């Protein structure tokens, strides 16, 4: 019982949400719809800008690459929080945590589930972008894998913080699950360089792992160069935030057992 992970419990979490996912239009929409709308909207916008400003090279690549990569942050964060909220909405949290499952098994289950759904949405978006705009995301080469790993880690630590806040403040902050991640959106410099941000905003961008990834993406698109330094800084920042966010979530979970908030959330 003291295994690092209870694989059966991890599988239970994955199966529970996959069973529901295929019957729940909301969840299917979350996985595909919004990102597809973004692809269509920004693809058309960037195509129009390119038509009228041919001197701006690779504008479509910049926008579509940025959108697809941002999907990794947004979807991986949401897939951490939705299983917790879903079980709370279903009044199933008491059933769930009265079994031998531990917090770490629950988290591991949500991570595996998130990766499965993220793979599906990534393949889908890549195909949509290619069919509509002949945009090939794999043009980014092995940087794509490094960026994906880092951006998924960002989604995870933001998700852990939000789950901790939900355990602490209950439904009052449930909207964070689909909104809080956008607090880092303007500072991540997805479509523009960090340099154009005001001084204070540049300071914020410097402590966000996302800004280093999107700076690297732009270097590849515009100059064909790639900085390992940016990837390493992003990765180190992610490890620090991931560790802190897990400690925060563990503390909030323990607090919710002490104060009875976990059962009240049910």
């Amino acid at each position: 019982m003291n295994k690092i992970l209870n694989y059966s419990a991890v599988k239970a979490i994955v199966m529970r949400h996959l069973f529901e996912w295929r019957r729940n239009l909301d969840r299917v929409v979350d996985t595909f719809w919004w990102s597809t709308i973004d692809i269509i909207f920004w693809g058309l916008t960037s195509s129009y800008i390119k038509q009228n400003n041919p001197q701006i090279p690779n504008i479509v690549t910049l926008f579509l690459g940025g959108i697809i990569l941002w999907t990794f942050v947004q979807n991986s964060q949401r897939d951490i929080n939705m299983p917790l909220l879903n079980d709370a909405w279903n009044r199933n949290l008491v059933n769930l945590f009265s079994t031998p499952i531990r917090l770490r098994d629950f988290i591991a289950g949500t991570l595996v589930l998130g990766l499965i759904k993220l793979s599906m949405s990534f393949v889908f978006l890549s195909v949509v972008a290619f069919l509509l705009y002949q945009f090939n995301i794999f043009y980014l080469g092995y940087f794509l894998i490094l960026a994906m790993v880092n951006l998924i880690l960002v989604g995870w630590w933001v998700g852990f913080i939000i789950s901790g806040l939900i355990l602490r403040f209950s439904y009052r902050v449930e909207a964070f699950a689909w909104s809080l991640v956008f607090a880092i959106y303007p500072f991540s410099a997805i479509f523009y360089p960090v340099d154009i941000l005001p001084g204070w905003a540049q300071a914020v961008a410097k402590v966000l792992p996302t800004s280093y990834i999107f700076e690297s993406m732009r270097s590849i698109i515009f100059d064909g160069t790639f900085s390992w330094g940016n990837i390493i800084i992003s990765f180190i920042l992610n490890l620090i935030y991931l560790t802190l966010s897990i400690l925060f979530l563990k503390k909030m979970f323990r607090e919710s057992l002490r104060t009875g908030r976990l059962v009240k959330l049910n």
Partner: protein
Amino acid sequence: MNDEMIVEVRNLTKKFGPANAKSVAVDNISFSIKEGEIVGFLGPNGAGKTTTIQMLLGLVIPTSGTIDIFHKSLFQHREEILSEMNFSSTYTHLPWRLSVFENLYVVALLYSVKNARDKVAEVIKKMNLEEIKDETIDKLSSGWITRVNLARTFLNNPRLILLDEPTASLDPEGADEIRKKILEYRKREKATILWTSHNMAEVEEVCDRVIFLHKGKIIAEDTPRGLAKTIKFCRVSFIIEEKQDEFLRIIAQNKWKAIVSDKFITIELVEEDIPLLIQILAEEEISYSEISIDKPTLEDFFISTARKK
């Protein structure tokens, strides 16, 4: 039933709220449950039953006190202990977009049940759920949902089951069926059961012993019959059509309590006074067409204790 203690709770206390204004939900309670015993956990709303059950499930951390289950500390051996327990409550729901089979399969995985699919099929058969196994929970009646909830409880062959009002929301026939299933399981597996209910007749029927909580404290602990016996008053009901006023005057003289509804009169009095009452009726030539004597029940104990406190 043997004398091995399955549950041992010592000086359990739970306080909620900020440090300067804590409310006490459970106040220094101690009790034990033997293997194979069915213990009723009773008390009015807010007595602390649910909080105690939540602490027994590791869902709420006590402020102080200890809980040992299967001779092990719940706080040090949570997963090991919970794998041999299960819980069912009318007030928790199963994910409603999952089918019955899917729900049970997920629960079997959570308990690391070997050959989970086979075990689920076996429980579905035993609980007569075959006809609804592919239905999603949102399409089921409350009777079916209660049965599925109970089926969920048997998946890991638990040695200890905590039941929170397992038959609430069921019609009498459905409730009877559920009680039979639980008692069958207890007999077959020698399981220990902690049972909360507001249905006193049910508790009298199934429980070997009752623990009565009020405002977080245990105020009584005995067999259902033993607790009922502590109530000295019983009720004698008559249909009296003539000389009703005279009869009520005699009742008042003897300081008995009467409840009158048209020709129906119910007298509340100590059991030893019943012969005197019958004698008075004969002496005064007051005729009655029907008589029934209701001895005190667990429900009387419940109501009188809740009112007194």
